[in-house]
């Protein structure tokens, strides 16, 4: 029976029929109805509150103006503060160079030359000294005087200490004269700083070895889709062969085919449904075909067929005994070894088994179809636990998708 067609016909009914259904049949359960009513009340309350808010602000435009002005003023103040903070930080970084630059100017790296000239003939010698050494030489030496004025040694040393404060630790080259010069002589003291010279003696900080950034590990997952870039997946050919053999052997217009990835290994399983008789299922892995279901029958004993969970590795079917008075729900899973394993069995009795023999007697039958006893994997459970298990394993039938004819499945497998 084509359930898809029934759905399609009912969804395309005319308005009169729809209204007739609306009059005679409930649309949803009570819980959904209450939920919708609750949401209607919430929305109406929200609408009423909004109306009150709008009316308040309408009647006080002055308040509205004041509030806008406040908002604007606060925003402007925040922007000014932020701008001032950013500008201050920028300026500070410009005025105070980073300490690394200072540390790089070591004693051996920069030179300051102090040259003195004098008019007297004398031998001069020059040597590179640190500033402190130079200061000591200058302070003790009477040969150096500043221009323009005649200065005493103490004044000279004061000036030199002032100069030292500004020169910091820059090394100084002092040219001293061997002969003494009278105080009246004016000499020009020229202090200049040259670019720091990096000599071999400066210990270089070891540079970190330059290494290439690590190349992230990539894993390439070949999927059937990626494989089709170069070759068609091998399982297509294998499945095609199975379909051809099956069609040759059993034929029939009632056989339906489908592809669905039940065990979530990215390769779909081939499902062949010999409608109302049996179901076959095949899986492909490790370059070979595995038979998951081989002529699993249904149609008898209340077994209406095998259903597949859309989101889990689970196949379920049910069957009954004693004309439906004992009902079994079985849950199967495909193992990594490509076999079918039963994980759970839910049993329910529609009779109160007073004598605990598991066989319904006439007087024990629940005429209203209600459940009396429930078992999960042969252990008795309460009705609440039974319902909870049912809710957790809510079945949405996917058997409807196993509805391709032989020609359609061949076309799908050939043109993948």
């Amino acid at each position, binding site marked *: 029976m084509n359930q898809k067609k029934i759905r399609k016909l009912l969804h395309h009914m005319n308005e009169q029929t729809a209204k007739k259904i609306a009059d005679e049949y409930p649309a949803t*359960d009570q819980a959904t109805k209450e939920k919708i009513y609750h949401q209607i009340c919430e929305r109406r309350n929200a609408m009423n509150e909004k109306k009150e808010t709008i009316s308040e602000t309408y009647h006080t435009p002055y308040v509205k103006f004041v509030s806008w002005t406040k908002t604007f003023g606060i925003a402007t103040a925040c922007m000014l503060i932020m701008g001032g903070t950013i500008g201050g930080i920028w300026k500070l970084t410009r005025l105070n160079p980073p300490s690394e630059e200072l540390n790089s100017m070591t004693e051996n790296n920069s030179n300051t030359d102090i040259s003195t000239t004098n008019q007297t003939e004398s031998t001069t010698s020059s040597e590179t000294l640190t500033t402190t050494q130079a200061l000591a030489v200058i302070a003790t030496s009477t040969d150096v005087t500043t221009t323009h004025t005649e200065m005493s040694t103490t004044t000279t040393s004061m000036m030199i200490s002032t100069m030292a404060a500004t020169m910091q630790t820059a090394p100084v080259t002092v040219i001293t004269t061997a002969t003494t010069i009278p105080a009246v002589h004016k000499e020009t003291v020229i202090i200049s700083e040259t670019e720091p010279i990096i000599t071999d003696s400066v210990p270089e900080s070891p540079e970190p070895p330059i290494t290439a950034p690590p190349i992230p590990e990539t894993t390439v997952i070949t999927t059937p889709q990626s494989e089709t870039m170069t070759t068609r997946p091998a399982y297509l050919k294998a499945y095609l062969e199975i379909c051809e053999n099956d069609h040759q052997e059993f034929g029939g217009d009632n056989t339906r085919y489908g592809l669905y990835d039940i065990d979530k290994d990215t390769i779909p399983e081939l499902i062949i449904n010999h409608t109302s008789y049996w179901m076959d299922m095949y899986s492909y892995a490790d370059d070979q075909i595995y038979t998951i279901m081989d002529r699993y029958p249904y149609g008898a004993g209340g077994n209406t067929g095998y259903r597949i969970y859309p989101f889990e590795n689970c196949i379920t079917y049910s069957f009954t005994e004693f004309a439906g008075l004992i009902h079994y729900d079985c849950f199967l899973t495909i193992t990594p070894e490509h076999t079918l394993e039963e994980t759970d069995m839910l049993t*329910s009795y529609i009779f109160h088994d007073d004598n605990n023999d598991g066989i319904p007697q006439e007087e024990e039958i629940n005429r209203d179809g209600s459940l009396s006893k429930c078992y999960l994997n042969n252990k008795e459970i309460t009705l609440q636990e039974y319902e909870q298990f049912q809710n957790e394993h*809510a079945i949405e039938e996917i058997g409807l998708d196993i509805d391709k004819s032989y020609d359609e499945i061949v076309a799908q497998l050939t043109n993948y």
Partner: protein
Amino acid sequence: MTEQEIRCLLKEQPEKGERELFDIYYHYVYTIVYHKLCNIGSREDIEECVIDCFVEVFTHINPDYDGSLKAYIGTVAKHKAINAGKQLQAKAKRNIFLEEEKFCELSSDENIEDLTEQSEQTEILMQCISELGEPDTTIMIQKFFYNHSAIEISHIVKLNPVAIRVRCSRALKRLKTMLLARNFTF
């Protein structure tokens, strides 16, 4: 409760009147909205539209209005559902501008002959479903029209989901026999 009583209740006790109105016409509105949006929107869209319908009705209903409440509510529901359907279709970008060159080449998907045949088949199908008897008729409509699961149906008809599935499969077999007897082809 008659429509006149609902109107009186809306005047005297508006909240109670609205609740009564909701209780009586909820399934009616839901079905009309569902009928328009089942092929376009999700269940959440349908519920949203139902909420919009009732908010609209509660906001604008005039208790002194003498006409049929059912007709008024049904019309509001239908128009809301059509508007919602158009919005959903616009979101799905299944529209084309008038100025586009391809517009003239567009043809309607509808085939009148198929539609006529479909509506006849629907009528026969509905007749056969109603002949199944309760609760099978309700189960079939809940499953194939409203697309409810066995658990949801069990809350409506007060049977356990297992019994629902068994009844559904048996009802399908009976339905098939009845349809074949009327030369219904699938």
